[in-house]
């Protein structure tokens, strides 16, 4: 069982992965393909269209961005993972000390809860096909009325554009009940039936991948029929794509305009926490060879290329049929294209990915309070995710949220990279917190904080859409700062 497998002994949480436990290339191809063909892909594809993306920017931007993501895993994460063969948490603890890793776990756990909340939102939209309630709109924040001051405060922090945000006038009981039912079920299963869900996820993965492709094909045909377009050549298809599918132009009110660079950086950095943030050290430490990092291409090009494009077609068709209907509701979109099978796909895609995310959040929280039972902590994480899922703003602003999530955890990756490769070359000591028995490496802590402050300052100065770009300079800032501060920290602690 997965629950049992996550115990210290079996998961090698505080030791190198032994030779006998190493896995072959195919294991990683399947795992990454399944993990990145998730419910949230059905939100992200439509949000590109809502962001006014053009055909070239989307197709080429995703191609380049996903390629850069694969290279990041292969050239940065996997070489460290296969040499150290330690979990991210243990490696970070050796460098930063237990106190700082506890803070990292807290940040990680909270972000996992919000991400799982977005997945619950996706599944709950499917309930709306059968049960009559008002679905959330693209620019909704909460399912109940909020004081005007809240909208203005969120606007001040750059989280929403108050001008374009819909003011909900009454409590949307139907939506709250739908999310609560889906979220509660997900939380309970995450506690008691994780192994069952993992099995369902494995079985559903090949079918779901084909369903995502089906969404795109069916939507494309419906689009051609709706426009009476004649497609007889590749040139016709490209003309159709640029004039109907991804026309570019102004984004929907309240959405950031996406250019080639936005798409490319989003595709590259939407999993920033996992590659340059080094979260996937915990996974790739089981790889026999570091080049197994290229297995991530299965997830990037099936989930973050084909699935995003297919989902974007569903939304583009909806906008073509009714320009006033800007809601991004994966359930109805999938049902309209592929019927009940499409709806089942949405529910499964959201459910099977929300469950491990809640489970991971529970593990992160449990690391902070080791005496708490895993079941209780996981259930609490599930409830937080459920409450988060009730707020449409998280799912409807998923592009921004994913960028923020990566940004928050990225500095730890730069610290690990610098500590692994650069610190020994500069005659400093790697894993210094473990060496001196320190609980809080303030060089690493200050690096994390200063990097986030720098990134926030850059976003505040250059505009909030730059949140998709600042991860790149931020990573170098973090690596440089960590080296400089380590000089001071190690000299002081050795004296």
């Amino acid at each position: 069982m997965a629950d049992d497998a996550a115990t210290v002994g079996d998961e090698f949480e505080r030791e190198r992965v032994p030779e006998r436990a190493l896995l072959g290339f195919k294991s990683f191809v399947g795992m990454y393909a399944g993990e990145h063909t998730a419910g949230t892909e059905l939100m992200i594809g439509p949000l590109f269209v809502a962001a006014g993306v053009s055909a070239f920017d989307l197709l080429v931007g995703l191609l380049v961005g996903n390629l850069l993501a694969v290279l990041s895993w292969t050239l940065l994460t996997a070489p460290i993972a296969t040499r150290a063969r330690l979990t991210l948490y243990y490696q970070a603890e050796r460098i930063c000390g237990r106190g700082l890793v506890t803070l990292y776990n807290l940040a990680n756990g909270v972000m996992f809860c919000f991400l799982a909340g977005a997945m619950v939102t996706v599944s709950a939209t499917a309930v709306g096909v059968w049960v009559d309630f008002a679905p959330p709109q693209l620019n909704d924040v909460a399912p109940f009325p909020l004081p005007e001051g809240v909208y203005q405060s969120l606007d001040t922090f750059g989280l929403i554009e108050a001008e374009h945000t819909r003011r909900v006038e009454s409590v949307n009981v139907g939506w709250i009940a739908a999310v609560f039912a889906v979220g509660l079920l997900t939380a309970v299963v995450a506690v008691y039936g994780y192994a069952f869900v993992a099995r369902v996820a494995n079985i559903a993965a090949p079918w779901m991948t084909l369903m995502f492709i089906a969404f795109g094909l069916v939507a494309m045909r419906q689009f051609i029929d709706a426009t009476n377009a004649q497609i007889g050549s590749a040139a016709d298809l490209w003309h159709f794509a640029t004039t109907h599918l991804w026309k570019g132009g102004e984004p929907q009110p309240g959405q950031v305009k996406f250019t080639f660079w936005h798409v490319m950086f989003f595709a590259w950095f939407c999993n920033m926490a996992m590659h340059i943030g080094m979260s996937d050290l915990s996974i790739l430490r089981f790889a026999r060879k570091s080049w197994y990092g290229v297995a991530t291409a299965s997830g990037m090009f099936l989930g973050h290329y084909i699935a995003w494009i297919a989902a974007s077609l569903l939304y583009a068709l909806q906008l073509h049929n009714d320009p006033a209907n800007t809601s991004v509701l994966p359930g109805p979109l999938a049902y309209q294209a592929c019927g009940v099978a499409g709806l089942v796909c949405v529910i499964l895609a959201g459910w099977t990915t929300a469950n491990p995310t809640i489970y991971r959040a529970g593990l992160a929280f449990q690391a902070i309070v080791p005496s708490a039972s895993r079941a209780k902590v996981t259930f609490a994480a599930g409830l937080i995710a459920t409450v988060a899922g009730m707020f449409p703003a998280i799912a409807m602003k998923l592009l921004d949220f994913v960028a923020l999530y990566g940004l928050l955890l990225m500095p730890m990756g730069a610290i690990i990279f610098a500590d692994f490769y650069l610190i020994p070359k500069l005659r400093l000591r790697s894993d210094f917190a473990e060496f001196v028995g320190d609980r809080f490496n303030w060089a690493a802590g200050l690096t994390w904080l200063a990097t986030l402050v720098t990134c926030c300052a850059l976003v505040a100065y250059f505009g909030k859409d730059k949140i998709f770009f600042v991860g790149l300079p931020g990573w170098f800032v973090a690596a440089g700062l960590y080296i400089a501060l380590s000089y001071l920290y190690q000299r002081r602690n050795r004296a």
Partner: protein
Amino acid sequence: MRLILQIVSWAALATTALAPVLFVAGQITLSHTKLMMLLAAIAWFVTTPLWMGRPKVDETLVI
């Protein structure tokens, strides 16, 4: 038995892939496409759990 289940599973998967292609080619209607995909989904989820992830039993040893 395992082989039969696998054949049904792969046929279901092939149907899931084929139905939208036939729709794009104008060979079947949307309602037929949806029906084919639903039946394929049922076939996949009924048969696949019976063999996927389960150890292969050497039938010569089961007497």
